[in-house]
């Protein structure tokens, strides 16, 4: 086995036993990137020299007796998270030359845990998209089939994990942007509860929905990474002061112990038009969970059908406000065009791509005089109903399982001319952001074309332990997570 193929927990064991070094692990992973990233195109920026310097320091720390949880582990960071001294573009021309003067809190916590930063991964511009095709720079390719998208917006991070171009990665999830690419690339993607991880240094898309998440090769690694980045941060007033448990302690091989596990299957998540192989794989996964001791029952989330318009109206209203800061004054692109207002318009007209401008337009419209009540306020009220659906379901069950995405990876170019079709690829993930709860996607099968299928496990706010427990038990009973793309 090559070192770059290891999971985080496997690599940590070898490092602790002195059987390899961080320098060796980092060098091999960098060589892997050189070998495959011309095809996959997961990375926007690579920082090999800094990575090797960090690896040498990690080896010295270990020799001196230190053993932090991620000591010497090479990781990738989605390019919407600020990294001190390293370009952070959000996949946008408007931030092409932006170099943050500070690390976001999640990045700083990874560094403090001893992680090695390999580089920054591709994303749809400002995390707006489901395929990475909205990146201003290039499209990332799915390692399982290079003609297909990796999903998005954290498609670069998901593809980098799937292609063994890092041992784990950070992504962000506003409406499914960690879970949907994890599903399409056959890796594990965890979106924590809103407020679980500080958003300080995450460049804002929709502030009431954005959350930093992790992409990993297995469930154990997701538990390890979450513990490293979670917890209260004085720099983010929406980060909750709730204790961070040892998530790995929650992982058990079956679901019989403790108080058992009640698993809900929402009838609204098996819809017409979804790929039959996805439905079959998810139903088979539910049977596996039942075999492991879970008590399975049907639940209802009756307002599911309204989640898509509610999500887009709220997300885009918030985005139009958040992206007002790109005015060509303090950072980013400026296109001089006479006076101040004309300079704003030229800067934003040229600096933003087609999808970002489309979303700013929609959000501006939803907030504009005469339409605020009919669109934005209406959506906020409907959000209350969607959240109440989940509150009621979690009275009956401990976790909810469903497909992550209605289809496996689609072809590059297939949906670029039809924004509404593209929006529908998040139809099973965006409700969780509206409700603020946690969700995880893990591999549960492959379709006839050999493309991965994702199982989504959702838990209530701060219910990450039970989500990880269910996911881990399923993972131990199956071998989907051991398969690797034919690169």
């Amino acid at each position, binding site marked *: 086995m090559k070192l770059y193929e290891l999971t985080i927990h496997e690599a940590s064991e070898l490092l602790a036993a002195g059987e390899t070094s961080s320098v060796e692990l980092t060098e091999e992973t960098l060589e892997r990137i050189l070998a495959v990233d011309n095809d996959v195109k997961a990375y926007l920026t690579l920082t090999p020299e800094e990575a090797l310097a960090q690896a040498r320091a990690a080896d010295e720390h270990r020799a001196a007796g230190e053993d932090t949880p991620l000591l010497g582990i090479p990781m990738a960071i989605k390019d919407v998270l600020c990294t001190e001294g390293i370009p952070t573009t959000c996949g946008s021309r408007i931030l092409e030359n932006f170099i943050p003067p500070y690390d976001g809190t999640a990045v700083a916590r990874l560094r403090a845990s001893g992680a090695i930063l390999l580089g920054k991964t591709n994303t749809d511009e400002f995390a707006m998209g489901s395929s990475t095709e909205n990146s201003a720079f290039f499209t990332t390719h799915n390692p399982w089939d290079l003609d297909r998208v990796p999903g998005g917006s954290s498609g670069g991070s998901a593809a980098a994990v799937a292609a063994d171009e890092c041992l784990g990665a950070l992504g962000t999830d506003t409406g499914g942007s960690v879970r949907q690419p994890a599903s399409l690339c056959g890796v594990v993607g965890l979106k924590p509860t809103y407020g679980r991880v500080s958003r300080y240094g995450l460049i804002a898309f929709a502030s009431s929905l954005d959350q930093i998440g992790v992409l990993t090769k297995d469930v154990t690694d997701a538990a390890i990474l979450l513990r490293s980045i979670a917890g209260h941060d004085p720099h983010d007033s929406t980060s909750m002061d709730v204790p961070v448990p040892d998530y790995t302690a929650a992982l058990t091989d079956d679901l019989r112990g403790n108080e058992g596990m009640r698993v809900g299957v929402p009838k609204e998540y098996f819809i017409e038009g979804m790929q039959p192989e996805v439905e079959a794989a998810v139903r088979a996964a539910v049977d596996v969970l039942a075999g492991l001791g879970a008590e399975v029952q049907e639940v209802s989330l009756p307002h599911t059908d309204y989640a898509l318009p509610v999500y887009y109206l709220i997300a885009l209203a918030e985005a139009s406000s958040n992206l007002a800061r790109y005015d060509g004054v303090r950072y*980013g692109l400026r296109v001089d065009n006479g006076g101040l207002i004309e300079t704003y318009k030229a800067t934003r007209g040229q600096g933003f791509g087609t999808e970002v401008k489309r979303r700013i*337009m*929609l959000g501006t419209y939803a907030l504009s005089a005469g339409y605020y009540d009919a669109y934005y306020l*209406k959506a906020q009220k*409907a959000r209350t109903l969607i959240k109440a659906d989940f509150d009621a379901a979690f009275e009956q069950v401990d976790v909810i399982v469903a497909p992550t995405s209605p289809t496996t990876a689609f072809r590059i170019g297939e949906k670029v001319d039809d924004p*509404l079709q593209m929006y529908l690829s998040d139809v099973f993930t965006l409700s969780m952001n*509206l409700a603020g709860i946690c969700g995880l996607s893990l591999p549960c099968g492959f379709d006839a074309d050999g493309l991965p299928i994702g199982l989504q496990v959702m838990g209530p706010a701060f219910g990450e332990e039970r989500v990880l427990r269910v996911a881990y038990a399923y993972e131990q009973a199956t071998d989907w997570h051991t398969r690797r793309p034919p690169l």
Partner: protein
Amino acid sequence: MKLSREEVQHIAELARLALSDEEQSLYQGQLSAILEHFERLQELDTEAIPPTATVLPLRSVMRADEPRPPFSREDILANAPATEAGCFKVPAVLE
């Protein structure tokens, strides 16, 4: 919900976006189709439902008002497109 060309131009003006003629045509069609899809929301009776702006049980979060060292002026200005005398330089605001 069909948007007129004038409405598209008005929204672009509010959002401070310079759009080409082609972009205006593209967005006029696409935004109209998306808004039409969103119309289903009006079926919901939300008369008695309070809005949710945040899912958190938090409201105004206070912290101690203690001075901390700020970022250096140099670091902050390093990303600015134009600076002069240690300040951001902008086009004339007053005509």
